[in-house]
């Protein structure tokens, strides 16, 4: 028989595949290509394909034909200002919102990071703990809070008054309640902890000697800050700016709550409204979002890539003398505490309150009931099965499904992250390792909603890829970047000798992983499991296109209820999700020491 390889080549191959790191890298390389690049190609195909229904009738073509019809409609249809309303206006709105949000996040998050790491601010412990809350909670938490708090009969399709109007009699104007301003603010506040984690991490790890050296040379404080500290954190600032910009650009839940009531559209909400009737146009907007996302994050890679040497972790960061805030200390601390309470605690109280009142707008005790939580067989509980959410089979089923999905995604993504981290670090510097590293980061670049759209396109062509399977698959792929990040970080901290010491006495690979590598870096690796789990629990935009019915997941159920105006149920489910997410985070953190701010999320 002919053998294509010579003895020498075969030996080389055997040696190559004898190393587990190589096997892992090859497998990841193939699988990730299939799971990210293939659907991407499919998506671009969909943009030039005519779909059955309104699209085919409008274009006067048969379904399945290739045509530039949708492209022309989205980018250049002057009739009824169609392109302007469908694409250009939402695009401008998106850019405006994303830019404002990222500036708010940077300024607020960066300021708090500096205050926590470099000053003698009071109540540091409380502020730093609560500050990451909005990031752990779902993105729409603040949005729904804003809506319930400020809505009134004068704005949007206002049918009832929120707390502000009902209790205090203050009717906020429309620009304040809906549209550009609240969307930007809410997104900014949501991503501020993200900026705080990134910038704070750098400030904490920065060698204090750098600043002390300047102080010794008699440089005044403000000059040290301006000339030493800021330039050193500049790459991190820029990187945060870009990441928050990209994340806000693809945000879906916030604009749907705070934008749609006044027909203020961004790309993501526009895409969602198009995808059912005009799939081609929806996919085009998804593609535009992906192009934006990839470009921004490619720029970010360049910045962080070339400036990496700035963030040297010496581990020797000695006790730095903290800036004395003097008379400013108390007002700042109190002010921040109030803001934190408003952002992290009051929403929860509001949801609780809103879930127990019978008639909207009336906050007297006589108008309150626990029926929406634990009622049974009550006709006015109109969400379908006449029971409170804690007893409703429908809700409990969705909760179970959501949890099962979160656990599955966490297990798959987390384990893949550990393996990818191992492979990437072991073969660091090789071309294969770089390729897999980039591929495993790629899903991060994809806006969730667009990624969902891609998988929707794929699930229609691949038999068996529906329901739980496709949700679990997309969740695992989408959260792989978090997990592989933690995996890589954990492996980088581990000297190669630790494994070699076991290798030399013949410990097989799986045992080295289970008995040596994983136990030593347990908490870092587990953070790689925690992040996908928590993100999955609160995820909406990634799954919204793929769920079989809107009752499948708690998050999509929440969307449906809020659309139908079942306010009490909506608020109750909202609270349920937040409590579950916080609980999972808390338990995992206490049991394993893993924590969400150890990884980098979006």
């Amino acid at each position, binding site marked *: 028989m002919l053998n294509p390889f010579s*003895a*020498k080549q*075969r*030996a*080389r191959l*055997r*040696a190559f595949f*004898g190393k587990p790191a190589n096997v892992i890298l090859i497998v990841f390389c193939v699988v990730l290509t299939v799971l990210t690049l293939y659907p991407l190609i499919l998506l671009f195909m969909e943009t030039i394909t005519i779909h059955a229904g309104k699209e085919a009738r409008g274009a006067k073509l048969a379904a399945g034909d290739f045509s530039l019809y949708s492209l022309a409609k989205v980018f250049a249809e002057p009739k009824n200002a169609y392109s302007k309303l469908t694409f250009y206006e939402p695009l401008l709105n998106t850019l405006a919102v994303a830019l404002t949000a990222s500036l708010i996040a940077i300024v607020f998050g960066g300021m708090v990071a500096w205050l926590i790491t470099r000053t003698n601010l009071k109540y540091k412990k409380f502020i730093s703990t609560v500050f990451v809350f909005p990031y752990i909670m779902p993105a729409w938490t603040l949005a729904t809070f804003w809506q319930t708090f400020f809505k009134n009969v004068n704005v949007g399709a206002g049918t009832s008054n929120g707390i502000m109007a009902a209790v205090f009699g203050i009717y906020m104007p429309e620009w304040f309640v809906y549209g550009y301003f609240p969307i930007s603010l809410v997104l900014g506040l949501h991503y501020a902890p993200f900026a705080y984690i990134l910038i704070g991490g750098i400030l904490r790890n920065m060698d204090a000697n750098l600043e002390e050296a300047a102080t010794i040379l008699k440089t005044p404080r403000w000059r040290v800050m301006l000339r030493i500290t800021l330039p050193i954190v500049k790459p991190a600032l820029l990187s945060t700016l870009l990441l928050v910009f990209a994340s806000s650009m693809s945000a879906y839940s916030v604009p749907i709550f705070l934008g749609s009531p006044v027909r203020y559209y961004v790309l993501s909400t526009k895409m969602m409204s198009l995808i059912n009737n005009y799939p081609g146009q929806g996919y085009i907007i998804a593609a535009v979002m992906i192009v934006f996302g990839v470009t921004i994050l490619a720029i970010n890679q360049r910045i962080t890539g070339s400036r990496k040497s700035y963030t040297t972790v010496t581990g020797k960061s000695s006790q730095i003398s903290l800036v004395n805030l003097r008379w400013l200390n108390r007002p700042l601390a109190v002010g921040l505490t109030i803001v934190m309470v408003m952002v992290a605690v009051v929403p929860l109280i509001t949801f609780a309150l809103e879930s127990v009142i019978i008639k909207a707008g009336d906050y007297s005790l006589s108008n309150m009931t626990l029926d929406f939580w634990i009622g049974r067989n009550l006709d006015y509980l109109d969400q379908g099965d006449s029971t409170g959410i804690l007893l409703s089979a429908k809700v409990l089923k969705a909760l179970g499904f959501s949890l099962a999905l979160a656990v599955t995604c966490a297990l798959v993504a987390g384990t893949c992250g550990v393996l990818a981290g191992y492979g990437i670090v072991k073969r660091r510097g090789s071309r294969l390792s770089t390729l897999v590293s980039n591929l495993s980061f790629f899903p991060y670049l994809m806006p969730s909603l667009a990624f969902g759209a891609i998988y929707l396109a794929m699930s229609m062509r691949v038999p068996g890829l529906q329901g739980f399977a496709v949700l679990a698959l997309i969740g695992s792929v989408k959260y792989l970047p978090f997990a592989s990040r933690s995996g890589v970080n954990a492996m980088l901290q581990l*000297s190669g*000798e*630790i494994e*070699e*010491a*076991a*290798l*030399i*006495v*013949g*410990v097989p690979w799986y*045992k080295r992983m289970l*008995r*040596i590598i994983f*136990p*030593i870096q347990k908490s870092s690796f587990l953070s790689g499991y925690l992040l996908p789990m928590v993100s999955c629990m609160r995820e909406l935009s990634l799954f919204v296109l793929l769920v079989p019915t809107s009752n499948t997941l708690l998050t999509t159920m929440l969307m449906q209820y809020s659309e139908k105006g079942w306010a009490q149920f909506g608020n109750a489910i909202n609270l349920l999700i937040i409590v579950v997410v916080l609980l999972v985070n808390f338990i995992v953190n206490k049991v394993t020491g893993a924590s969400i701010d150890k990884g980098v999320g979006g």
Partner: protein
Amino acid sequence: MPEIILKNVTKRFGKSVAVDNLNLTIPTRSFITLLGPSGCGKTTTLRMIAGLETPTEGEIIIDGKTVFSSEKGVNVPPNKRDVGFLFQNYALWPHMTVYQNIAFGLENLKWDKKRIRQRIDELLAMLKIEEYEKRYPSELSGGQQQRVAIARTLAPNPKVLFMDEPLSNLDAKLRTEMRTELKRLHIDTDSTFVYVTHDQLEAMTLSTKVCLMEKGLLQQYASPLEMYLRPANLFVADFMGSPTMNFLKATAKKTGDCTCEVSFCGLTRTFTGSKPLGDVPEQVTLGVRPEFMTIRPDGPVKASVYSTLPAGMETTVKLRLGGEIVTSVIFGSVDYPIDSEVSLDFCGSDMLLYSTESGALIADGSL
């Protein structure tokens, strides 16, 4: 018993060559040191013999068995090479106690519980760390961690023991102590040791043979004393010994079979080689160890004192001779006043004559 043979071993990382066509035979029961400045390829060589790194080309034979051959496509994994490896940072598993650290490898070799217990007791006693058995690595001092690492490496009775700068993380006093222990251990375990270091003193004191490398190339492979007294080239001469050898620029003119006239620092003397000289280039470098450049009242050469560094047991004297600064080491503590005049002599038959251009040794002899 094992003999290790390296044939034409080359390792390239991308375009840079870490080890270049290395040929080496490590005899049974020897204590070999791979010595050289950092980045010379010594650690890479060690890791290639152990199987932790794959050579680009060449052949490695341990105990008559080919463990690597690029030609035949053989690459035996490290655990099948029957070797022990002592890492620079000890690589103790932080989540296991001392006992577990040592036992883990043995369990893996399917030793039974009783035998493991016995072997560990033996090792703990040998390395005097009995009382730390239940401690974790983080609860031990550097020296104790080092001993645990040695115990773990010795546990399965490897025929060959590789050590990668094992003493570089210890303080000076502990290092001297561990050197003594390692030398004892070599005899007690009756195995072959291959040791990597950049410290020439460590290489001198420990090994039976030293392999000095620079930029991936083997410079000299000889016993420590031969390497010290007859360095094969200027690099070896410069690297070995502290304070370093004096190198005096000179011109030479051959006057006989074994003799030539050398002029340096305004002096002209006759160099008598221990064997016929062959071709002698005009530009030569005269190598004189500081201890062979003695200060004595009736010395024929005059020099002035530049600086004196008494260290108690011996004194290093920097002298100005001609236009150059030379070093002389004398026994005992003498403090010469700066700028005073002294008399020098070149004594013994360990003067070395090198070609300045190629750096190769022409001959050893006397002046």
